[in-house]
């Protein structure tokens, strides 16, 4: 020990540094500090999770299972449908122990349709027999997760949170003002997990900053039986300037109806126009249908500038964890909830110690970014390249016909992992991508389409 300490001082003694070092690069003596959080006496750490969706429920479950006193706030405990696609990746069933009876439908085929109506079948050849995309009703999934969090020990507070008071020092608690059955009450907690969705009040209270949102608009349409049979296990994606300038339009089968919708970031005021567009495109397939519900919801496009401040952490939609290109958010909400909950449990050593911002950053943010930031960035890249113009969308659909592409896509979506890459196939896929983009751009441009795949401007 002494020898090591001596070697340490020798190595870092500034007077012995080699002469060729630049003076500005002075090595200071290395200081290592170890700090530990203050223990809490007489009670466990109290954490409030605001928002009882997949993110909040997973966080509450992880917290309660770890021994923390957890309060789960949810303003809407009735089973009103939430506007949502309702598709989850297959791995979520395993990872979150979701019982199969909650799954309404198993989507085993997908069709992607280009602006010129070129239709590519996605999955009929490449999905293995045991693979599918589970479709659930959000209200069913959410209430299941909430009740499971309750059984793990979280206290469900069916109230609307009206205000969050941020304390000025580390010793003071956060005050959550909420409306419980018409009475205004206040709860004091040590830490807060904000899981209250795209219009997060928690995010506003901590000045987390804003994010760009896409507007998703959908109509639920009950179809006659023969038309519904077509969509029994099929989901469709439509791309084109007539249905969305920067996203896609969809027809997703739900329990006994289909959801026909579209989304956009840049032209929210024209969303009704795009909805018209998608209705027009699928008019033959949904003729005879009856609209039973119209809904719209914002979808975050990127993470908020601040996701952790003080002892408040944002998760799920509140943090902005929605992928580009596909708009998937449920799985990431649940995972971030679990990760945040486990981070707090670990940092507080089972609820016995106080926690601080650095703990949340280290255990939650860093883990999250390390695991998923690449996925998010990759999908952003895909969106940038393929949703730019009709020509690029045509290329996207052409590419989707390739089996290797389909396999890669399914593996990364269903299991959230990168499948085994085959070097040659990768090269072929890349060459195919470039080729398709070039060809479609030429065809699109030949009569003044206005395609804007600038990157390929050089090679054409």
């Amino acid at each position, binding site marked *: 020990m002494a020898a090591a300490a001596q070697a340490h001082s020798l190595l870092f003694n500034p007077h012995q540094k080699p002469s060729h070092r630049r003076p500005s690069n002075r090595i200071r003596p290395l200081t290592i500090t170890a700090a530990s959080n203050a223990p809490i006496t007489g009670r466990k750490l109290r954490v409030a999770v605001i928002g009882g969706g997949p993110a909040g429920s997973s966080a509450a479950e992880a917290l309660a299972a770890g021994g923390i006193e957890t309060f789960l706030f949810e303003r809407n405990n009735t089973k009103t449908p939430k506007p949502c696609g309702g598709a989850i990746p297959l791995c979520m069933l395993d990872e979150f122990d979701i019982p199969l009876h909650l799954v309404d439908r198993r989507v085993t085929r997908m069709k992607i*349709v280009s*602006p*010129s*109506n*070129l*239709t590519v079948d996605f999955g009929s050849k490449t999905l293995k027999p045991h693979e599918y995309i589970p479709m659930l009703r959000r209200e069913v999934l959410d209430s299941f997760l909430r009740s499971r969090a309750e059984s793990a020990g979280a206290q469900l507070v069916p109230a609307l949170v009206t205000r969050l008071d941020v304390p000025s020092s*580390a010793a003071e608690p956060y005050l959550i003002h909420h409306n419980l059955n018409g009475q205004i009450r206040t709860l004091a907690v040590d830490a807060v997990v904000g899981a209250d969705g795209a219009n997060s009040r928690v995010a506003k209270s901590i000045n987390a900053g804003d994010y760009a949102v896409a507007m998703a608009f959908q109509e639920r349409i009950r179809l*006659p039986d023969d038309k519904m049979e077509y969509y029994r296990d099929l989901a469709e994606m439509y791309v*084109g*300037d*007539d249905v969305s300038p920067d996203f896609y339009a969809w027809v997703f089968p739900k329990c006994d109806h289909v959801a026909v919708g579209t989304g956009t970031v840049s032209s929210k005021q024209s969303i*009704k*126009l795009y909805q*018209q*567009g998608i209705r*027009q*495109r699928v*008019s*033959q*397939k949904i*003729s*005879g249908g*009856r*609209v039973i519900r119209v809904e719209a919801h914002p979808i975050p496009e*990127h*993470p*908020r*500038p*601040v*996701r952790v*401040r*003080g002892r408040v952490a944002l998760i799920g939609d509140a943090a902005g964890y929605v992928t*580009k290109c596909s708009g998937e958010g449920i799985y990431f909400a649940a995972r971030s909830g679990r990760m945040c909950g486990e981070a707090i449990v670990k940092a507080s050593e089972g609820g016995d110690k106080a926690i*601080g*911002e*650095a703990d949340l*950053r280290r255990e939650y*943010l860093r883990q999250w970014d390390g695991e998923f*930031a690449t996925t*998010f*960035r990759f999908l952003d*890249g895909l969106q*940038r390249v393929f949703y730019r113009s*009709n020509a690029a969308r045509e290329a996207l*659909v*052409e590419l989707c*016909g390739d089996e290797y592409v389909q396999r890669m896509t399914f593996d990364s979506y269903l299991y959230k992992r990168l499948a085994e890459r085959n070097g040659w196939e990768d090269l072929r896929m890349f060459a195919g991508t470039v*080729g*398709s983009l*070039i*060809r479609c751009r*030429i065809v*699109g*441009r*030949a*009569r003044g*389409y206005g395609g804007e795949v*600038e990157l390929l*401007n050089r090679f*054409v």
Partner: protein
Amino acid sequence: MSISTTLLSPPPTATSRLLFHTPTRPALFLRPTTFLRLSAPRASVENGAGIPASSAAVAVEEPAKAKPEAAEKESSNGAAASKFVDGRWIGGTWDLKQFKKDGSMETDWDAVIDAEARRRKWLEANPESTSNDDLIVFDTSIIPWWAWVKRYHLPEAELLNGRAAMIGFFMAYFVDSLTGVGLVDQMGNFFCKTLLFVAVVGVLVIRKNEDLETVKKLVEETTFYDKQWQAAWKDENTGSSKKE
């Protein structure tokens, strides 16, 4: 034309217009184009299928909000629902036999590319609805690679090579006149080789003044999303990592 009268009779409400494809057929009959001959038999086949659906009319609950926008779009929707028709477009793909060059057995790929370009442009303005019965199966990979190269790559390559050669010749002359180093000796020097590389890449990448702006914008765009993810860590790096 009993079919057309049945079609013209249902009230053109926003609701039926949106859900039923067939009531918009009248627009097709009003078009005084050659397409009429080819489209009429097609239309009647579809109408046969469409009428039972429309007669089994179901109550439609449209939210009041959608009505004004829908009514606005009615007229354009009416014109837009016509299908793309061309003598050579058969069964959802181009009939390559009709694209033969005069007197030979080879397909005129340039004409195929032009026809497809025209079709896509037409579809931009008049989006078609998809149907399960006539699927589109044409995709650009049907056209062989050399047709693309011959028509689009080669002329551009000729232009760029010409530019590169001219720049190269004058730069070599210029350097020689300044330093006295001949062409062969210039090529042996690492610095000269680097300059050559920069010149070649420059000719390829920058063809107009606007390209510089485009490259800058592209770089900024590609890193934008990454910056949004890094934003959460900016606070920490600027030293506000005090524990609270």
